[in-house]
């Protein structure tokens, strides 16, 4: 009997395949589940808006667009135009922007080892906004090719802001919470003030930029989506590929180096990627705050701190969050025809700011 016990014990240590202890093992299912949810939500929320179009109609219109599915249309041409050319690009834009901002937030948080880093709170969004406004004011901005330059000028502005905040907030080798937020607020305010001046000083035709600046999707169209997508795709790919090195960098820089990570290079690549997708998102949706902090935090609470889970799941949850928020905005617009649509950025700040304060106060439970 005694022998049997020792034997089984030896066996259990030898066979101890701790793979089941790795939290990342459910990652694939979570990704599939959230991606499906996102697709379903895209169809469902396409029924939300001032013109009344049922979910069934949306579904049929979309199905009709697929190859070999040409059933006789049982809907009006205007309904099809609204779904395909107005609502769908807007929803897709919201999804891409939400994913980008959440991913950028998660990346900044990982790089700065600071759970409060958000593209908006650290001033990067405001830097991007100034860059974008300068891009809009360029004489080339009238052509679609010129519009394609806006993400680049926004990227330049965002990169300037990120570098400034990083240098200002750095104390020795660390980036403390307080200095990061203070530097972010200061740099953000500085860039915003220049943007405001430019908007006031510019002629009437640029006044539309102000509504863009508060954050929203109601001017989105397919050509904008097509300009945004490559930037978002490149930045996202880079961030996903570097998520394991980013895990190791959650240790201090010295340990990461001693474990074989080329810290300076990874930092630079990830900073550029996060800033690029922030800039691309801001170029088309204005400054939408707090998504980058709300979403990754929730994902970390549920699925743990491993960036290989955190990154794809934050992107999907960010997309879902933004699609829902934008649908909420459109739904509120349905209630009254003379009610001006609330900018999405107002809603995210309304939800996100109290959450941010809550995080700032409650630092007991380690999720980071």
């Amino acid at each position, binding site marked *: 009997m005694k022998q049997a016990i020792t034997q089984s014990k030896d066996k259990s240590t030898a066979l101890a395949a*701790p793979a089941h202890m790795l939290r990342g093992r459910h990652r694939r299912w979570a990704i599939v589940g959230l991606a499906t949810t996102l697709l379903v939500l895209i169809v469902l929320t396409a029924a939300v808006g001032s013109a009344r179009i049922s979910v069934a109609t949306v579904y049929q219109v979309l199905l009709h667009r697929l190859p070999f599915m040409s059933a006789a249309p049982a809907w009006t041409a205007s309904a099809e135009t609204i779904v395909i050319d107005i609502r769908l690009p807007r929803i897709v834009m919201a999804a891409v922007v939400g994913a980008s901002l959440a991913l950028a937030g998660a990346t900044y948080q990982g790089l700065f080892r600071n759970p409060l880093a958000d593209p908006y709170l650290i001033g990067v969004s405001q830097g991007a906004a100034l860059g974008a406004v300068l891009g809009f004011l360029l004489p080339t901005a009238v052509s679609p090719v010129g519009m394609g330059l806006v993400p680049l000028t926004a990227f330049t502005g965002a990169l300037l802001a990120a570098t400034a905040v990083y240098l200002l907030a750095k104390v020795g080798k660390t980036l403390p919470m307080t200095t990061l937020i203070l530097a972010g607020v200061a740099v953000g305010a500085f860039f915003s003030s220049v943007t405001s001046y430019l908007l006031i000083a510019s002629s009437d035709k640029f006044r539309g930029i102000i509504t863009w600046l508060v954050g929203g999707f109601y001017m989105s169209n397919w050509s904008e989506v097509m300009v945004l997508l490559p930037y978002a795709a490149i930045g996202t790919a880079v961030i996903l590929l570097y998520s394991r090195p980013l895990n190791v960098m959650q*240790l201090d820089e010295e340990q990461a180096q001693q474990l074989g*990570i080329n810290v300076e290079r990874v930092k630079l690549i990830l900073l550029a990627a996060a800033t690029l997708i922030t800039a691309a998102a801001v170029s088309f949706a204005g400054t939408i705050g707090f998504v980058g902090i709300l979403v990754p935090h929730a994902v970390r609470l549920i699925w743990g701190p491993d960036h290989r889970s955190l990154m794809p799941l934050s992107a999907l949850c960010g997309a879902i969050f933004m699609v829902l928020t934008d649908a909420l905005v459109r739904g509120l617009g349905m209630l009254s025809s003379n009610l001006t649509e609330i900018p999405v950025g107002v809603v995210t700040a309304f939800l996100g700011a109290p959450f941010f304060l809550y995080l700032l106060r409650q630092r007991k439970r*380690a999720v*980071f």
Partner: protein
Amino acid sequence: MTATARPRAMQLGLRIEGITLGYNGKDVVNGVSLAAMPGELLGLVGPNGCGKSTLIRGISHVLQPRSGHVTVEGKDITSLRRQELARLIGVVPQNPYLPQAFTVLELVLMGRTPYLSRFGSEAPRDIKIAWQAMETTGVHGLAERRIGELSGGERQRVVVARALAQEPKIMLLDEPTASLDINYQVQIMDMVSKLCHEHMLVVLIALHDLNLAAQYCDRLLMLHQGKIRFNGPPASVITRESIRSVYGVDVYVSSHPLNQLPTTFVVAGAGSSPDTIEKV
């Protein structure tokens, strides 16, 4: 020709030749040379600021030496990529920052980083090696616990397991017993000694407890102001004279009643008047 003609033993282990390094142009380690063979437990002692941690930073190449060479297994560390170096040298830093929300297993698996391609993830083999390292240091029972829930001794053993998972030839430990209770001190040192002699690792360990150093190390180096002042077996390094000249304090040194290794006794009042011990 030179590489093959040289005796093989010359290429093994760790070799430091006249290394000088420091911070902001100020040298902290000044012309240190030493050699250590596999299976040798080398202790680094000396007062605070004598350059123990800086020397460890230099060997692991997180600090660039101003002059001198460090060779590991016959290879100059400056010619190696970070990833290659991390396969040879595992480091247990002093008070390392560890992210609280990762689990013990996740943290130890980070030790496999030098063997993974940048975009790859851990294979079953990596998990197995990490698990063995955790069994060796006795933290496998804590695999799913979060780092934030561990005691100081457990944390330290997790970091040693992480360094072991790197499958290094050389292990550098910077005061791994500092601020631990005596039971953990003995536990960690027993483990390090076993690793060194059974896995034939070169182990360089910085310690501030002279008695612990004398009990466990095969050889001791006593550093003072960035230079090696004494080098040899514990009995020749830990003497009343060496401690007086390096630490500037008078102590009583005797041999351990059980194993005759040098043991240091402090005497109250000896810090201010050097002849207290004579009076006693």
